[in-house]
């Protein structure tokens, strides 16, 4: 018997659109063996999702498909609507990016699980329920009997995704397609789910097709990586080889875009890929990456095409390290001095800050945080969703007023709403948010957007003068003068974020609060935004508070790092101090959960069980107690941990016994 589960031959998918047709997948060949797991990586618009929906035969009516998709002996493309039902959810199952929206809000979890076996195995109601409960139990979910009676919105995101995985497993499929299943989850949850997926693959001898934009995630679950660009496979090979010796310039460029261990802003710029992925018409051929490729030479287009370049390793081009053109990657090494930091006095000082929401059901978002940000430095705040990092930032900007505690900016008390702050203060503190599309007025032109604060806060009344400044600022963020008259809704995500950055910097602020500024962007765009933020900071000496869930990004950009959990500071120190032992147990767990970009790196595995405690609950002891892998005993639950100081800058709160450290008893717990 043929051991391959899935064989795709010369697959083309076109979409008929207004005025022609575009090609979403082109000339794609792929084989997936029994019990093999491949990861498909690519940025948005590269056709990876279209590929999975083509396999599932779930494409919009304006699509045309040619080629072969062989699932064992069946060509899925030739099946009728009726016949394909027997494959979907039965032999081929799928798990999606957003578990919350993939579960029907109006039906119980049990009902949604049961129907799978009721349809595919003609199971009776009781039998189906029994199987559903079995599937939930096999994923180590507590209280499956109770769970089946609940509705999706009553359980956490991590649980929802496990329900979705259980649903996919019910008929023990031969192939499971996972489309960014952990992108919406926290790193610690992600780590647990990824382990689970790996285990299940072997337990049920399934083949996996794992789609993601995150090469680190793919490393954890896949044996082989397939890189897609603009609907074509450009390279495929075993993880380690692909990472160590990429052959296609795009693969190499992509890997170098990603912030990872050892890359910090003082020594490295991240690689960027100019331009963007183009929708290709059906008649265009040749190398899809040609327009953005730095290795391009006159003759390379003719030679383009998939070839074996090593064992199980194929690439459409092998010029990643070609010697006949100057290697642009060499320029990435830089040395940016750190001299401009002023250690004498913090520009921003947060003193014992509390922020609670709600009246009856109090949510304790921030619980006694004290921290200072020095002039010209970057404070990175990292933590999972619900840790209070965003509330912190928004309180500093003045979107909220503190419930208790003070915020000082250059010794001025700014613990008030932004409406009550002086124009000078508003100018000094700027912010950049995650979703540039939402923070910029879509119907305003770029000029209007940047012009407004210039007029209101800088008092520049002459339109000409404002315009000259804006043009200069746009140049600094890498946008040309043409952008002046463009509406923000017509810009790409990366361009919008550049406009937001330009708006913030044109006021020469002393402090910029960046709340997840790159997490909605593709890696190649993220890297250019991070480079830009690094450059601008070196030029203007502004200080940043940089909030992110992504430890690699935080590590790249920050001078100081603060790790937060449940509204409290777990650990604070310089980047080196926080990223190296001694660790706070939570920092350690976070670091071990982060998917490693480089597959040869192996690290200690710490998996957090449980979930964040209810934010409305008052906590007496250590907030991390209950999930902590180092927990000492009841002392952790009943007594607030002391502050353990290792140096002037490095401190953490934990009951653990660290040698050579000064301990200070904890202050009042929650107020």
């Amino acid at each position, binding site marked *: 018997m043929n051991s391959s589960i899935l064989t795709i031959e010369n697959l083309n998918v076109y979409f008929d659109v207004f005025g022609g047709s575009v090609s979403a997948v082109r000339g794609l060949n792929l084989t997936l063996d029994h019990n093999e797991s491949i990861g498909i990586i690519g940025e948005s618009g590269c056709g990876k999702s279209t590929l999975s929906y083509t396999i*599932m035969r*779930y494409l919009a009516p304006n699509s045309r498909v040619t080629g072969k998709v062989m699932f064992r002996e069946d060509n899925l493309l030739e099946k009728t*609507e009726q016949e394909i*039902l*027997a*494959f*979907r*959810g*039965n032999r081929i*199952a*799928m798990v*999606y990016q*957003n578990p919350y*929206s*993939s*579960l*029907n*809000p*109006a*039906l119980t979890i049990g009902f*949604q699980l049961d*129907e*799978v076996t009721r*349809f*595919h195995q003609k199971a009776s109601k009781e039998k189906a329920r029994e199987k559903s409960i079995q599937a939930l139990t096999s994923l180590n979910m507590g209280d499956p009997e109770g769970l089946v009676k609940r*509705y999706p*919105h*009553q*359980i*956490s995101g991590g649980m929802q995704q496990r329900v*979705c995985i259980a*649903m996919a497993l019910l008929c023990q499929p031969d192939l499971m397609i996972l489309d960014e299943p952990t992108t919406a989850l926290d790193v610690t949850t992600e780590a647990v789910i990824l382990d689970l997926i790996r285990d299940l693959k072997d337990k049920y001898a399934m083949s996996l097709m794992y789609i993601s934009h995150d090469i680190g995630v793919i490393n954890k679950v896949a044996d082989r990586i397939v890189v897609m660009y603009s609907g074509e496979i450009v390279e495929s090979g075993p993880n380690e080889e692909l990472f160590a010796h990429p052959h296609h310039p795009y693969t190499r460029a992509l890997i170098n875009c990603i912030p990872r261990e050892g890359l910090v802003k003082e020594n490295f710029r991240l690689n960027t890929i100019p331009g963007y992925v183009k929708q290709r018409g059906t008649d265009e051929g040749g190398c899809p990456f040609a327009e953005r490729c730095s290795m391009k030479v006159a003759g390379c287009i003719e030679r383009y095409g998939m070839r074996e370049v090593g064992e199980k390793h194929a690439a459409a081009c092998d010029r990643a390290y070609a010697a006949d053109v100057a290697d642009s990657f060499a320029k990435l090494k830089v040395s940016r001095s750190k001299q401009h930091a002023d250690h004498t006095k913090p520009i921003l000082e947060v003193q014992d800050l509390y922020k609670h929401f709600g009246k009856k059901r109090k949510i304790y978002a921030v619980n006694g945080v004290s921290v200072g940000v020095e002039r010209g430095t970057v404070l990175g705040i990292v933590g999972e969703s619900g840790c209070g990092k965003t509330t912190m930032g928004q309180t500093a900007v003045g979107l909220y007023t503190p419930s208790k505690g003070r915020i000082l900016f250059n010794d001025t008390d700014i613990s008030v709403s932004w409406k009550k702050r002086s124009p000078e203060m508003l100018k000094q503190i700027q912010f950049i948010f995650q979703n540039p599309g939402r923070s910029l007025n879509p119907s305003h032109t770029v000029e209007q957007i940047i012009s407004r604060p210039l007029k209101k806060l800088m008092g520049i009344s002459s339109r000409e003068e404002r315009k000259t400044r804006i043009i200069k600022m746009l140049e600094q963020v890498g946008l040309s003068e043409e952008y002046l008259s463009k509406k923000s809704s017509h810009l790409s995500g990366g361009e919008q974020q550049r406009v937001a950055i330009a708006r913030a910097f044109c006021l020469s602020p002393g402090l910029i609060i960046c709340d997840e500024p790159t997490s909605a962007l593709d890696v190649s765009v993220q890297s250019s935004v991070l480079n830009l933020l690094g450059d601008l900071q070196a030029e203007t000496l502004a200080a940043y508070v940089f909030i992110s869930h992504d430890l690699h990004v935080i590590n790249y950009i920050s001078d100081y790092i603060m790790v937060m959990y449940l509204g409290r500071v777990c650990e604070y120190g310089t980047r080196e101090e926080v990223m190296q032992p001694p660790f706070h147990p939570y920092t350690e767990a976070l670091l071990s959960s982060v998917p490693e970009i480089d597959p040869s790196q192996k690290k200690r595995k710490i998996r957090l069980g449980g*979930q964040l405690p*209810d934010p409305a609950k008052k906590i007496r002891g250590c907030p991390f107690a209950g999930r902590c892998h180092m927990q000492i005993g009841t002392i952790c639950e009943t007594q607030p941990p002391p502050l353990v100081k290792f140096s002037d800058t490095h401190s953490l709160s934990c009951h653990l016994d660290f040698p050579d450290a000064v301990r200070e008893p904890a202050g009042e717990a929650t107020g």
Partner: protein
Amino acid sequence: MNFTFMIIKRLGSLVVTLVVMSVVIFLLVEIMPGDVAEMILGQSATPESLEALREERGLNDPVFTRYLRWAGGLLQGDLGESIYMRGVPINTLLWRRVGHSMLLALTAFIIFVPLSIFLGIVAGVKAKKTADSIISFLGLATMALPEFVSGVFLISIFAVQLRIFPIISVIPIGESVFSNLDILILPALSITFVMFGYVSRMQRSSMIQVMNSDYIRAAMLKGMPRRYVILRHALKNAMLPTITIIGMNMGWLFGGLIVVETLFAYPGMGSLLMTAIRTRDVPLIEACVLLITVVFAVSTLITDVMYGFLNPRIRFQGDVQ
């Protein structure tokens, strides 16, 4: 907060709404030119007789006292007396009419709600296909026609040409509406005409939205047949917004009732209110408007309860983890 508690809270706010509305209605009628005494005496009024009548009826009391008296009466079920009909208690007039209107509204409801929801769903499922075009065209066409136009249109076809239904919907003296049910059909149809376009369009768009949602895609990719996915996964969610819209448009339905009842000379509350307004029968206007408010508020409440019933996210609010 659980569902029962929510209902109790809504009941509380319903009472508040009614109190506020009764004040508003009272004050509105208050600022209308002329007072009750002038209306009663009409042409024969002299300053002395007016004054005497005002004194007798307590019209010279402060507004607040008069409001309390009126509201107090309402609470005891006394709606006052009609002026135009020379002192007939409104209670004897109104309730029969209300019954008639309810019956008409109910008939219309039974026709248009299932019809528009069903056709809306069909249009949504078959979006951009022929069936959808036909339904959408029908919806737009009927929506554009005001009740009196569609009413006349219906009359000329079914009553004048085909002679299936009576031209006007009067109830012969001494008979009850129940022995004359055929008179309900044409008025109910003209109300259906107005509501259909609106409700079916709403249903269509929410159906399309639901069919494009992630969870419908997930259900389809679990290998469920399309018909089953539509019935079990899509319907419940797709009907939520429609129910709200229907509930919110009860007022509109009443507006329609007034016109249609007048057109067909149907003895309902709408035509009573029209008569009251024409004859400036203040207590009767007050009673009618207040009643419409009650119906409106209650139907909103029912809508919310239904909504909560269909939507577990409302029913189980608060125990989200």
